[in-house]
């Protein structure tokens, strides 16, 4: 038995073996963790894009219509999931509001009722006015709005990200303007 302060040849090699393995494991962990976190680390610029919804004339003034667009970066395995709907409200002339269909409460698809001028959510009963502001129910804010611009007679929105009511949404979603 060697005493406590000496180390045997084999004991040293075992410790070196542990050290060697730890180094290799660390070196491998970096790319593996990078792969796992790739969806987080990807910059927003890499997936947000300006997408045309259609000609201005397709949206009558004062009305709200459903429009669909295909998300940028669609992959073959995505199937239908990359087709997204949004509510387009042509306020007047080239002034638009483009709302996400996702309720600002938990993301269920809201439906537009032109007769009463309200968006209603089928899940927990969130209701919004025609300008997207919150009318009643559990949502804490108005509907999410896509940034839009009108170019060459086309309504174009910046999209590519799911709106969620927490931190990520506030970066993109402008507060709906108040009509009153």
């Amino acid at each position, binding site marked *: 038995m060697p005493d406590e302060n000496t180390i045997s040849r084999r004991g040293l090699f075992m410790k070196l073996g542990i050290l060697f393995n730890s180094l290799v494991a660390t070196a491998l962990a970096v790319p593996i963790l990078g792969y796992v976190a790739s969806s987080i680390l990807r910059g927003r610029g890499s997936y947000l894009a300006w997408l045309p919804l259609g000609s201005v004339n397709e949206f009558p003034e004062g009305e709200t219509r459903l429009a669909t667009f295909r998300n940028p970066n669609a992959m073959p395995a995505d*199937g239908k999931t990359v087709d997204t709907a949004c509510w387009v409200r042509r306020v007047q002339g080239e002034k638009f509001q483009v709302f996400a269909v996702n309720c600002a409460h938990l993301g269920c698809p809201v439906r537009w009722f032109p007769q009463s001028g309200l968006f209603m959510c089928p899940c927990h009963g969130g209701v919004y006015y025609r300008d997207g502001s919150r009318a009643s*129910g559990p949502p*804490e804010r108005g509907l999410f709005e896509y940034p839009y611009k009108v170019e060459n007679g086309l309504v174009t929105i910046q999209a590519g990200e799911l709106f969620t009511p927490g931190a*990520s949404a506030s970066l993109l979603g402008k507060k709906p303007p108040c009509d009153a």
Partner: protein
Amino acid sequence: MRRVIAQIGEWFDYRLKLAAPIEEIAGHRVPRSTASWFYVFGSAALTIFILQIVTGIMLAMIYVPSAAEAWNSLQALNHSVMLGWFVRALHGWGSNFMVAVVLIHMVQVFLFGAYKFPRELTWIVGVFLLLMTLGMAFSGQVLRFDQDAYWGLGIGASIASHVPIIGGAAVKLMLGGPIIAGATLSRFFALHVFVIPGLLILFVSVHLLMVLKLGINEWPMPGRIVRRATYEQEYHELTKKDGAPFVPYAIWKDMFFAAFILLAIAACALYFGPFGPSGVPDPTIIQTVPRPDYFFLWLYALLSLLPPSLETPALLIGPVLAIIGLLLLPFLSGEGEKSWRRRPIAVLTVLLIAVILGTFTRLAGIAPWSPHMNAWSGNPVPERFLRKSTALERQGALVFQSKQCRNCHSLGELGGQRGPALDSVAVRLTQDQLIRQVIQGGGNMPAYGKNLNPAETTALVAFLGTLHPAGQLPARDAALEESQAKHGQP
């Protein structure tokens, strides 16, 4: 013949050396009191888990984990592949039964004080097993890639986004990208098929090993107190004095119950068939009313009933506190009385939680908070409300329907229940109050001021004013009448 089999057996055991440990496990002595029908839920959960593994592997032979193909492959399983519907139904019903049996097992363990010394770690591992079971239930619902799954993911992402600071990153990690798409389904497939089952097998093994090493919890007797210093000796004496070998003394009840549960799952599968899939997961189809599977219905109710300001803290802090509470339980009451007869608070806690979960689940079945999206066009105003009514009042009934009031307010039991039923609203509100409520909203009702012209409002209020039971007068403003009488106004 028998000798040949024995020889083959010996040949294998000479190399495997498994007969002795198996005999030891089978013959280990358990307290006679544990050969009870109350002690069968753990083994039943294990049996269902094995069923889930077997049926899961079978489904994976046909299922395509791609957002483009998953729904079609489920249709193929339901309609084209021979008995595919039955395997899907077994797996779906198996998951429902597994959540239920795991919960019953947990309640039994809690009420019988089985989490106390020295079985604290068995309980803690069990808490993780419960969480993994729920994780399997949710990820399994995602793999049934239909409309409910798609919007359910959106709800999950919305909840995750509320986590402070890392909310945005958590959403992207969960979805595998900025939107719900192919990568989302693939990662839930990896979780459901590899990650969580692997962990489950590991944790179930540790859980079982501890049950064997520490011995199964004896039937709790009121007044028999657990003390760290003496418990293990007492347990040892109990199994010696009043014990019996696990096989066959106790195991036959486990076997009967396991077979009964499997039969029940098969019967449900045969009778009710597989779950879904509901509509195609196409996010441009917004005419959908997403609903969670039954084990998350209570959460659905909670999310509707909490006031908005409390929702985020309750969602983020509630589960953390609940899990910490469950994990700390064996440390907070690791000793003392085991019997439920002497633990009134424990019994009341279980009853309270059961009543809350039961009520919320029941409420979520009715979902009174959801507007009925088609009531305005689908449910006509009952005839009795229109008898003897004037032209103005009938016009008001039209306004009532066409402005979607019916989506939230019922008449004659039909329509939404988000707002109060209006069958006798005229008894509760005077004409002025009705006008104010319609124009300004309030009390969780939108203001209709901008969406009704004065003529429509007049007609609507005239109609609402007729809604009172026969023989009961509508509400009137006594002060107004008084002042009108005094000043001689009409």
